């Protein structure tokens, strides 16, 4: 299986090869991967790739899934236009 053709995060175009390289460099948590590669930070907010990222971390570092922390979740669950937020704030 060629990891450069395996898409993990469709939103930010992150492949399995990208993840494996980062693992080799020592990055081992979802939070780190997110900051460096934007994996899970697109429109789906890790709802598609999240479980695969968790699984790949568990596999590479030989940990049970229970011990692989999921990434932090913050509002919003999807993109919201700044214009929309401003209009709401103006009304308030």
């Amino acid at each position, binding site marked *: 299986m060629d990891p450069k053709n395996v898409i993990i995060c469709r939103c930010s175009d992150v492949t*399995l090869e990208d993840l494996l390289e980062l693992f080799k460099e020592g990055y081992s948590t979802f939070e780190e991967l997110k900051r460096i590669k934007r994996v899970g930070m697109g429109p789906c907010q890790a709802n598609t790739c999240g479980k695969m990222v968790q*699984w790949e971390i568990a596999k590479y570092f030989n940990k049970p*899934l229970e011990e692989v922390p999921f990434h*932090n979740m913050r509002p*919003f*669950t999807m993109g919201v236009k700044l214009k929309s937020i401003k209009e709401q704030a103006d009304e308030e």
Partner: protein
Amino acid sequence: MRRVEVAIIGSGPAGLAAAKPLLDAGAKVLMIDRSDMLGGQLTKQTHMFFGSEKQHASKRGIDILKLMVDEIQYHENLTVLTETTVVGLYQDRVISCVKHDEYFKIQADYILVASGASEKSLPFENNDLPGVYAAGAVQTLMNVYGVKPGERVLMIGSGNIGLIVSYQLMQAGVEVPMLLEAADTIGGYLVHASKIRRLGVDIRTNMSVKRAIGKASVEAAEIWRLDKHWQGIPGTEEIVPCDTICLSVGLAPLTELLQQAGADIKYVRELGGNVPIINKKYQTSLENVYTCGDVAGIEEASSAMISGEIAGLEIARSAGYKIDNIDQHISRLHDDLTNLRNGPHGEKIRIGLEKVGVK
């Protein structure tokens, strides 16, 4: 800011079932759904349900939906917001929403998160080729919009969704030559599996897809045998001609709103991933925030309806509404849940719930 008494996020079987006892008790309910129609996954479930008669067994999902919506839709205390996505949930029970491009906030006394689940995906080569679908998308295309996803589908996953969608594809005139399961046994009910096997589907266990093949879209799939650690075994590859690869590899609870607000969460693999820590009343660790249905652990629609009804009754009681015989009613519902989770197919759920420590 707009204030509401009870905000229900999600109008699938769990959310709909919760709304009824709340409205009957006299509560004012706001129901929010991001789709343009109520019903969540019920909108695409054209198959007949199993389970017990109380949860409408032997009726089709889409007909159950009509019954449930009819029971509440003209109630004067119900407000419905469709095409509205809840994008934020905060500890003070403020929820922020987006409807088309309008952004607004709502303050709720009680919040019931019934947001359901998302579909899991699978890492394999060329998994971004057009023609690779999740089973939910296939059901939406076929059963909601009447569009065939392809002509020849390789199904991945033998849970009930994979088995049922295979059958529905064949009903729509689509070929399903093969179904692959990574585990060594079929995941769903054998009655569904037997039905599609009789129709000629080659069900193979310990196998998965290695690679999608095709230039502009899927033209074939390369499959291979897996070892007991679910790793592919080189040398066992086969080519299956197909124009669609349909992934039905499980669901994950959609806990993002609860996690944003800081609810206690635990990873429980038997329940599909991260689940909120709840008690028997379906209360989360956040004050006056409840949850029910698949977001509290992946089961199926019948248990989602029961958990929704319990959560609705518990919120009504907490808000001070008097309901006759509520204790007996709730205890009967818990008995119904126990019955649904009996037997070998409920084992995973029983183990999972024990890990959550539901008291």
